[in-house]
């Protein structure tokens, strides 16, 4: 624990690099041209990656900072997604700078790039936070730049509405989450997560502290639910996605989800599975079940592409919660196939993020299409941004590469074998089935809950296939006279292709990503490998002691 402050700084070197890059982008924006900011952002992320690479991945705890396989996995996820989003965002902006379309914002890219870098730094801090205050500060460093990005991107009424809605609802969620942190502090008497966990396990913990636990869990889960866009804090997603740009939608559907999963995972490591097992998994199972069902049935009726994807992102939040629930219920079955629910969730998160960024990248890349117009009916109206599913009609003819890429991403999201989404759903379903895997299925037993959850997951995947396939059918089986422009900028197209390659790689070799995820999950929530509770007890004790 005797780490000097300089060494503490070295632990968060990647985040510092991101913040420095943000400063360069902000200041440089006053002097240099339009796309300079995004170049700085890309360079900053690459620099942060190289710093992360140089860092030892073994557990180091200092001043509330936890460097372990879990936080390293989160860091890599954040930086990799950041790089992809950089491509999507900058391509988007280039289009805004040159097009004459209505309601499009021009310029200001350097500020956006800087803000985006701050967001990434915040998210990365959330990943390494081992302390309540740092966790909250990190979350706010995610939220505030998000408000700014939403506000900067669109100056039309819808954009402003989306931005405001997100702002206020996020404040509510933050407030609720802050209450959860207060309760945790009340339990532990310390802001250090390890200390709180140790206190919870200790025999001497008073009744007051125990009584605060349900409050802490409930409010903490709700706080995370907003980031995940899960029930009951999911309402904003369709409205906000619809009102913003594809690049921002890609951002909103991925990065906050990472934050939400980190919050839940940390909460899990503190209060579960040993402390109060019954509370956490039951509520997460319910939320997972409701969230995926609500998201999917809502998506069935959407004709607006971004609204549809927003609903689908709600549904995927539900899937992500399945693994968390499984991790929250300490399994007593011998380990069979997976390495735990948290690993499944982390793996699914990555596969979901790649496919989602790919879809939004493709939409950003496609940009605009010509409206219906026949010569002689007046001047040709201006191009319209792609917003509806119908706007993709006949895309396989006009832009076969984009159509193919979108089809692959959607099939992966739908969970069609052998695409990454399938491996992810498989891992999630197995993690749920593994809970008490050897016990009989009796009504009301834990096993019954989780088997039911797994069945619901598969049913939901079937419902989801309906609307994903609707988009693919539009692209491949409908014809249109309205050409799609593909004027959204090359970099978004590049992002789309990179995502396609990533999907291909994970399809062929899911093992690498899965084993990284399982290492990460194992480090935070040791999978109950041993049937006896004693062993998992000691593991947790060791963890607490090392903090």
């Amino acid at each position, binding site marked *: 624990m005797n780490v000097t402050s300089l060494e503490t700084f070295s632990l968060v070197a990647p985040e510092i690099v991101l913040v420095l890059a943000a400063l360069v982008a902000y200041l440089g924006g006053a002097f240099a041209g339009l796309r300079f900011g995004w170049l700085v952002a890309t360079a900053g992320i690459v620099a942060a990656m190289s710093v992360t690479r140089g860092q030892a991945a073994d557990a180091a705890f200092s001043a509330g900072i936890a460097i372990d396989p879990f936080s390293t996995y989160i860091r890599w996820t954040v930086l990799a997604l950041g790089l992809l989003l950089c491509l999507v965002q900058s391509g988007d902006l280039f289009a805004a700078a040159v097009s004459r379309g209505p309601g499009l914002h021009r310029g200001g890219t350097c500020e956006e790039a800087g803000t985006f870098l701050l967001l990434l730094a915040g998210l990365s801090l959330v990943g390494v936070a081992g302390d309540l205050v740092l966790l909250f500060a990190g979350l706010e460093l995610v939220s505030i730049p998000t408000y700014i990005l939403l506000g900067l991107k669109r100056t039309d009424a819808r954009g402003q509405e989306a931005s*405001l*809605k997100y702002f*206020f*609802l996020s404040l*509510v*969620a933050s407030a*609720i989450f802050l209450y959860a942190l207060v309760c945790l502090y009340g339990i532990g008497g310390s802001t250090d997560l390890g200390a709180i966990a140790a206190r919870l396990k200790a025999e001497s913990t008073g009744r007051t502290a*125990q*009584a605060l*636990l*349900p*409050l802490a*869990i*409930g*409010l903490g*889960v*709700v706080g995370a639910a*907003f980031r995940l866009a899960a*029930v*009951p*804090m999911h*309402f*904003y997603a*369709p*409205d906000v996605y619809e009102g913003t740009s594809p690049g921002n939608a890609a951002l909103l559907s991925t990065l906050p989800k990472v934050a939400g999963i980190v919050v839940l995972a940390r909460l899990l490591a503190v209060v579960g599975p040993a402390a*109060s097992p*019954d*509370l956490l998994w*039951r*509520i997460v199972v319910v*939320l997972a079940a409701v969230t995926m*069902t*609500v998201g*999917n*049935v*809502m*998506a*069935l*009726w959407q004709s607006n592409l971004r609204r549809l994807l927003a609903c689908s992102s709600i549904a995927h939040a539900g899937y992500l919660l399945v693994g968390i629930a499984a991790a929250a219920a300490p399994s007593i079955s*011998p*380990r*069979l*196939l997976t390495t735990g629910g948290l690993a499944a969730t982390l793996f699914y998160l990555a596969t979901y993020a790649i496919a989602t960024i790919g879809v939004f990248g493709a939409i950003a890349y496609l940009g605009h299409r010509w409206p219906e117009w026949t010569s002689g009916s007046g001047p040709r109206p201006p191009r319209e941004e792609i917003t509806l599913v119908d706007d993709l009609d006949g895309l396989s003819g006009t832009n076969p590469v984009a159509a193919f890429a979108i089809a692959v991403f959607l099939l992966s999201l739908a969970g069609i074998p052998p695409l990454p989404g399938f491996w992810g759903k498989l891992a999630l379903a197995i993690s749920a089935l593994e809970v008490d895997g050897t016990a009989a299925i009796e009504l009301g037993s834990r096993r019954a809950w989780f088997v039911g959850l797994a069945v619901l997951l598969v049913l939901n995947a079937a*419902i989801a296939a309906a609307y994903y396939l609707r988009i693919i059918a539009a692209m491949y089986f409908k014809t249109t006279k309205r050409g799609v422009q593909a004027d959204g900028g090359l970099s978004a197209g590049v992002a789309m292709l990179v995502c396609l390659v990533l999907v291909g790689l994970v399809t*062929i*070799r899911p*093992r690498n990503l899965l084993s990284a995820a399982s290492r990460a999950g194992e480090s935070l929530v040791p999978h109950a490998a041993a049937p006896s509770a004693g062993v998992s007890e000691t593991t947790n004790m060791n963890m607490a002691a090392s903090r």
Partner: protein
Amino acid sequence: MNALSPSTLLVLVPLLPLVGAILTVALGRVLGARAHLPAVAGIAAAFVVAVMLLFGMAREVGVGTTGHDHAAKPVEMVTTLWEWAVVGDAAAAGDAGSAAQLFSIPVALRLDPLTATLLVIITGVGLLVAIYSIGYMHGDPGYPRFFALVSAFVFSMSMLVAASNFLLVYVFWEAVGACSYLLIGFWFTKPEAAKAAKKAFLVNRIGDFGLAVATFLLWMTYGTLNFHDTTLADGTLMPGILGATRLADASAYVGGAVGTAICLLFLLAACGKSAQLPLHVWLPDAMEGPTPASSLIHAATMVTAGIYLVARTAPLFEACPGALTLVSIVGATTALVAALIGTVQNDLKRVLAYSTISQLGYMFASLGTGTLLGFTAAIFHLVTHAFFKALLFMGAGSVMHSMGGVIDMRRFGGLRRIMPITAATFLVGSLALAGVAPFAGFFSKDEILASLHSRGWPDAHGEHLEAAPAGGHANAAATFHLAFHTASVTPDAAQLAGGARGSALDALNTPATWRILFWMSLVTAALTAFYTFRAVFMTFTGPTRVPEEAGHHAHESPPSMTIPLVILAALSAVSGWWLFSTHSLASFLASTPSFTAPSVASTATPPAFHWDLAIQGTLAAAIGIVVAALGHLGRRSDGPQMERFLGPLETLFANRFFFDQIYSALIVKPLELIATLAALIDRRVIDGLVDAIARVPAGLGTVVRHLQSGLMQRYALAGVIGTLLIVLALVARAMG
């Protein structure tokens, strides 16, 4: 140094055509009339690499240094590229105490004499066909698509013969089927082509089903799908199905009911892919595809996949003598029936198609003997057949090209004056096919007849061998063969198989059966010579006539088409003599791991030239040619035909033994009836139910959608209410 290691080279063989295919697809529109470049370059490079591998392998085996070697050592090299799908990890499997529970599919390629030989054939014939297609497909709107497909086919086929895992074999078994489907239906706007493609696909699916079930059974029985031995993470050795460990142990292969089932399912798969009775009906229709594709896929390479499969799994078949006998019966029957049908066809390509079916039947008849001679003879015939049948098809294509797409032999004649190169090379190919010495087919056919003869007359054959200089103890192996089969499976293995020893099929395994098969093959040889020369005489002799479709520009084909013809003609002329006289192919192949299993290797015989059989075979060929000459030499090809002599038999042959009609009446029509009924029930009953169920999520969606009011206050309120509910529920639970 490392860059050119054998494993790198092995990967390059399939990789280069794959890159060629991808480039052709990507650049097709840009390259236009030069779209053949990536494909031809890729296949050519792959051919060079395959030849390098072949020579490397030959050095490894030591061909020519040891001469005939009774104890051929298994030679193989396996390269594992990556683990494709792993279920469970080694540690967990170790915990469970059973290593066999680990399901792992490595993408592993192998190189052994059999694979090396086939790789050279695939890439070599593929290269010649690709070059030929430059001329043949010139000006076709689907020019780039054709080359992309040919490249993709060469990739899939090389993967099929190089895969060291049954699941990979299945994957590429399907992949070559898909390429074949796409090439048969290449001119998909032609209804016959689309129909033929569909037929080929559906008939093949029956065989594929066999392969899939056989793969499942293999996994259940042996606990692995790998050919080779693998070392698990914890250091234990996992014997592969065709790995050194299992091959060394005569009792390691399961006979009885399970073993026979696996073999019969393999045979079903082989019948589908290699167009054997009763699944042969797709191949003649497949001639609707472009002729180069017929030449490559439906004559020289893909259809031999069945031969490859049976040869590769030889040790499995050896454990089930009944199944082996059935292989021969199917093969010889197919050979005879297809040859009979071939005698009355008037479409040049269909004559060749039936001839292909017939020759593949020969190979199966040879495989079924279960002797080392039988296996190597089948592969020998596969190689020579690839040369002369590709040559004949490309010759037919050249005729078709020149005749403006007409391929009905009654509509042209005397073409030797118009297309001398095509005529000369076609004649060479025909001599090889008919089995006339010293052309290639003569030697390979002789070996096949010898292998059948050795089973039909084991004693006579033994004496015959003793007369040969190095006969020695080998005759014992030949005569002992039947006894060996019964002893090869231990009672333990039989009990493992869960069935009684042997199967009803074993009753077929008598010398009488083999004698009948031998005579059938001899008759087939005569018929082969007859229909081949009937085609030669009808097409190239007699008064010169061209159909009006050819216009006034009936001419010899361009060099890109004739050069491959000449090369193949040279190979068809000399390869048989060369490979036979040096005995290089047979001794090379004997080192293939599958053929070093004691059950196969113990049947090895010294190389010999069987004068008696050679004379019988040559006589048969001579009779066929003479009859053909009497009927057709120098006459108008649209004159009176065979019907005068054959009477009602002609109807039977011309209608191809009514196979299509029987299938239609017995299978297609009843299925259609069931399908109509099912459709009715589906629309009325099931759809109604499904619609009702589908309305549930949709209805739920409508309800949920109304909550989505767009008013922020409501969202916040709903969120807070939800939070309260959650907290209350948790508190209530915590309180008890």
